[in-house]
């Protein structure tokens, strides 16, 4: 299988964000066919003083090795993908994500995450989001396995 060397991840320009959360609504539309945003959105915009922060998966892929049924894999485009039909809802990936970007909504047992589809980028009226290409080797992260504390 051809392996991806790069992956697109989201870049955020806080100075352009007005906190309107059109991105979240677009995202929940992708994952849950709902305009609610919030807990049904893989991207979250959080107020940070006078500015805003983005919280979203950075495609590092630590979760891939956590999945007992092989539901998580890196696709041809480099995106870390959760196959909902294979997933058995154990939440191991949710619990082990070091940045809490593998999300779980109350709506269903299987988690969900950013798939770099760009729906949020297109939805933002201010151009505060962009998909940028990065090298996988530079962002890749592996679940700890070393003996003893690191």
């Amino acid at each position, binding site marked *: 299988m051809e392996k991806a060397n790069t992956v697109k991840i989201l870049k955020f320009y806080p100075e352009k964000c007005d906190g309107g959360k059109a991105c979240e609504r677009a995202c929940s539309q992708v994952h849950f066919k709902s305009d609610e945003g919030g807990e049904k959105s893989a991207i979250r915009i959080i107020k940070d003083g006078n500015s805003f922060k983005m919280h979203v998966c950075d495609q590092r*892929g630590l979760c891939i090795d956590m999945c007992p049924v*092989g539901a998580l894999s890196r696709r041809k485009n480099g995106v870390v993908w959760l196959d909902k039909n294979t997933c058995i*809802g154990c939440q191991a990936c949710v619990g*082990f994500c070091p940045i809490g970007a593998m999300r779980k909504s109350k709506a269903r047992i299987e988690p969900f995450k950013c798939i770099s589809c760009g729906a949020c980028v297109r939805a933002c009226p201010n151009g505060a989001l962009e998909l940028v290409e990065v090298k996988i080797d530079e962002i890749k992260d*592996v679940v*700890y*396995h070393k003996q*003893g504390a690191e």
Partner: protein
Amino acid sequence: MTEGQIAVEEYKTGNTKHKWDLKKIKSAHRVVAEYSYKKGKIERGFANRTLYVNLSTGQIKEKKVTEDMKKKFTGGRGFGLKLMWDSIKHSTRWDSEENDLVITTGPLCGITQYPGSGKSLCLSVSPATDIICDCNVGGFFGPYLKFAGFDAIEIQGKAKHDVVIIIDGEKGKIIIETAPLEETNSHLVNEQLTHIYASEDNDKSRQKISVVSAGKGAENSYWGCLNFSFYDIRRKVPRMKQAGRGGLGTVLRDKNIKAIVAKVDNFDGVSNNPADPVKLAEVGTKIHREIRDLDRYQCNMRAVGTGHLVEIMDEYDLLPCENYRFGSFPKSSKIYSPKFYEFFTKIIPDGCWHGCTMACAKTVDGFEVMTGPYKGQKVTVDGPEYETIAACANMSIWDPKWVLEFNFYCDTYGIDTISTGTAMAFYMEMYEYGILNKKRCNGLELSFGNHEAVLEFMHRMAKKDKAEFIQIASKGIRRVKDWLIKKGWGDPQLIEDCGMESKGLEYSEYVTKESLAMQGGYGLTLKGPQHDEAWLIFMDMVNNAIPTFQDKAEALHYFPMWRTWFGLNGLCKLPWNDIEPANNAETDEPAKVPEHVQNYVDIQNAVTGWNIDKEELILQSERCYNWQRAMNVWMGRGTRKDDWIPYRSMGPVTEMEYLSRKERYDKQLIEKLGLTKKQVEQMNTREKMKSLYDYRRDQYHKLADAVYYRRGWTPNGIPTPQKIKKLGFQDSKMIQMLQKKIDEDQKKGLNVWGGKYSKNEKPPSINPNYWEKW
């Protein structure tokens, strides 16, 4: 292999590939019996029916699970006890036609959100103890049995020829087929059957099969274990976990069952249909995070599994070395966990059920077998776990490769590493004393450390070698003790004191000499000396947190009840206290891990929709615990005599042992027995040993007094009818049986406290028949 993020398909184990004609093997099957059932929905953790199979008659039927059964027995092991009570007789023995082999699940079994939730509980009358033995085991079988539609499977009778029992949850069928051509040894038969019964030729389909089997060692010993498979999609092998204790694999083979296969359709994270899946995921995620953040600073389970205990036990003088004579050994660092870490395949989810992030199940892939029928082949070895490594310490085997070899053959031959190791260690000690020798051992030089002789013994046993020693030694320590004494080959007391068995079952791998509470944890048990009821050594010996008999009795009430609860629900004990919240030490009762107790209350409520609290949780166990003890009494055991333990587990049997820890024991003669320093100086070692011997045996009796009292039992260890009624049971057959037994004890003068109480000491109650006033 260590860089991670390798696609599932790309993992390689380097194992030897087998070329079997699976079509030929399958076509040799002949259907003996078949039964179709309507697939139902699991409701809040229960399938609400159990499966009954009679191999003698070919009868297959469903039994309903009633609300009353849930109320009294909760599930899992409790259901097993209920089914056996209804099916067996007081005279049933392991090889009786009517002996049951029961595999049960429990309401929480099969949830994926909380670590350690895939356990099966197996019960049968044990060849080692003649009473019911219960074993807790991982692997996929339990969850699949439930997803296929049953809370338990109960097997009575014996097949005429080797059979496989197939529980096909995809088609809703139970089929019994003859299986003449399959291998018997587990690592092979599990792989063959996984391939034969998978719906499609891919790993996803193979992962939906779980096989239970036992190998040739199980056929020819009392140490047979049940191997439960779980297919590993990365390694592409069915790995296995063992229901090890008490010879349940021996029962499986006695029934001529080659294997039991469970197969499921699709399932997901809510196949248990829990009352509150949101809460379940919330609590589960919380503990996954705890493991992520803290395991590497606590037990390091994710890296090395339970093997991390070896170095700790060695440091605290608790690692059994040379048949429990010593608690540490100069060579022991050779088998510390870092040595095995070098062999383990890393960065693979190692849980024995989905979602177990504690992931203690380690493997060594591509291990080249050094002896026996599979010499030269490369295989996956599951483990070794602490018990297996420590069993090797007991035999004085200090080479990790031979630990792996021992581990591999015990598993595939279907024998318990604990019983095998503990028994071999006893034989080795007898060999050292000349009570056994090469001739008496049919050519085997069973000296400590002779790993080749151990493997040779196992191979000969698996080949049904008829030599006298092989035949008797493979039936365990109790039978060998009787044999040695009958032959007049040694001092009977020495033989009794050295052989580490109680109730006929071999000890698991901890030295208990300096912890009275833990001696009780091994002896005052239901099935025999296994640490699954209580592990109190640190609390008692290191922290001195339970100094009085009353304190110890309270611990020997609470912890056995608490730990029994895991078995009622289909859970693993490890995620309870092998990971602890960061602030656990600051809580009121750190030994109980209060936050995790609350987790368990929450997840049982979240699955079943019940509304229990932590007290009700203990009550669930108390019902089943007392019921099992009462069944032991019914079967002619379950008394003080049966709870006795060998002196090796209480103190130094030999002069060498005394002298090796002389300072400790001399100090105790002064501090605990009240002798003066001068008196101790004037005594020779034999005299000192005798004083300690009498003292420690009396201490054990006093502990038994306190524990029986706390549990509401007679001074002879019989659960009182009053207690049984208090727990909500009305079964008149059981209640009358107990009363009759107590009346008999009264006539024999057995309803009296066992300890010798001096003027300053008090027995638990002045009236030994205290319960009559309830």
